[in-house]
């Protein structure tokens, strides 16, 4: 898939009200493959941390017998980070405001993950 193809996959995610940006990130090393972020968000650093967090959490979930994560949602005081892994190992990441419709973002992330799989 081309870089344009990855960016297109993110349109549905960034179209959800309250989403400040979205990225496609390699799960293994946290490199940004495509991004559509509002100004002020440090994409490369967020990608690296998101990948690292996903890897740690994935190992813990595997060890706990619930299987690798299919969706995770980091909630913070002033916003959220939502992630869905694609079959290829890519991560689809969304940065959102606190009151975002997390269910809708999840659906769009899953759609994006399907299209980049």
């Amino acid at each position, binding site marked *: 898939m081309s870089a344009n193809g990855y960016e297109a996959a993110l349109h549905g995610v960034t179209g959800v009200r309250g989403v400040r940006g979205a990225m496609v990130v390699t799960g293994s090393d946290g490199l940004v493959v495509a991004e559509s972020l509002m100004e*002020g*968000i*440090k994409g490369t*650093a*967020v990608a690296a*941390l*998101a990948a*690292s*967090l996903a890897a*740690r*959490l994935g*190992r*813990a*979930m595997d*060890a*706990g*017998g*619930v*299987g*690798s*994560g*299919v*969706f*995770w*949602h*980091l*909630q*913070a*005081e*002033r*916003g*959220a*980070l939502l992630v869905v892994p694609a079959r290829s190992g890519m991560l689809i990441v969304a*940065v959102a405001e606190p009151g975002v419709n997390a269910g809708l973002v999840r659906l769009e992330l899953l759609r994006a993950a399907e299209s980049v799989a």
Partner: protein
Amino acid sequence: MADDIKLLSAQLAQDPHSLVFLRLGELLRQKRQFDLAQRVATNGLERHPHLADAHDLLARIQADRHDYEHAFDEWDMTLRIAPRHTGALKGLAFLYFKVGDLAQAESHLREAKKIDPDDPAVDQALAMVRGGAPAAERGSAEAVPVSAEVAEPIPEERVFAGLEGAQEGLLLLDAAGQVLGGALKSADGQDATQAVAAYLAGVSQEASRTAKLLGLGGWVGLSAEGPRGNVHLTPPTQDALLLVVRDRSVPMGRLAVIAQRAALIARRWLERQV
């Protein structure tokens, strides 16, 4: 016990070469004063480097501190010095059991039984390793009775007493991934507590860094869906991490509510420990 510790400390001070450090270190270990116990054992070992019991003592302290790598080295050294040391054989069996190497665990226990056929702890541990233990005990590495945490259940583990899933789906950790309370079982009933705790050790720090970098403030929760269950992580205090695991029938929103309730209990419990 406190008087004994004072008495033995005085004896050791009078005669630093005395073997009384073995009893003193063991008493301190039983009182869970691990820093002191380790200092006593290490000082004793400096004076008696070829004393198998001293290596065994240090190994037991390290095992209680979850420093399994060093505990392994010390029990290994104990056996090099005294190949028939049943304490070291049981200790190594415990460590092998913990990492899931049941064949090695059983082999060490069989060796211990040959040397001391009347030791009931060995029979109990063998039954556990062979899967013959009662269902309630099966799968718990701690049930291999070689360390203080086995022989004397620590009250801290009752932090979630009375809460649903206290022994299978709630886990409270410190910042270093050490278990403070609760327990976790995998879908097939195996004890997954230590493995999950180890993997989660850095998650709190990573979540905190990610949230800060994004200008999102402090993180309040991390929920995740897996194919066979849902999990929710939350930091009840800055230095602790709470994990709640439920099967997929419990929706994420309800899981967050359960986690909030457990976090409140954990916070109160942690405050009482200060």
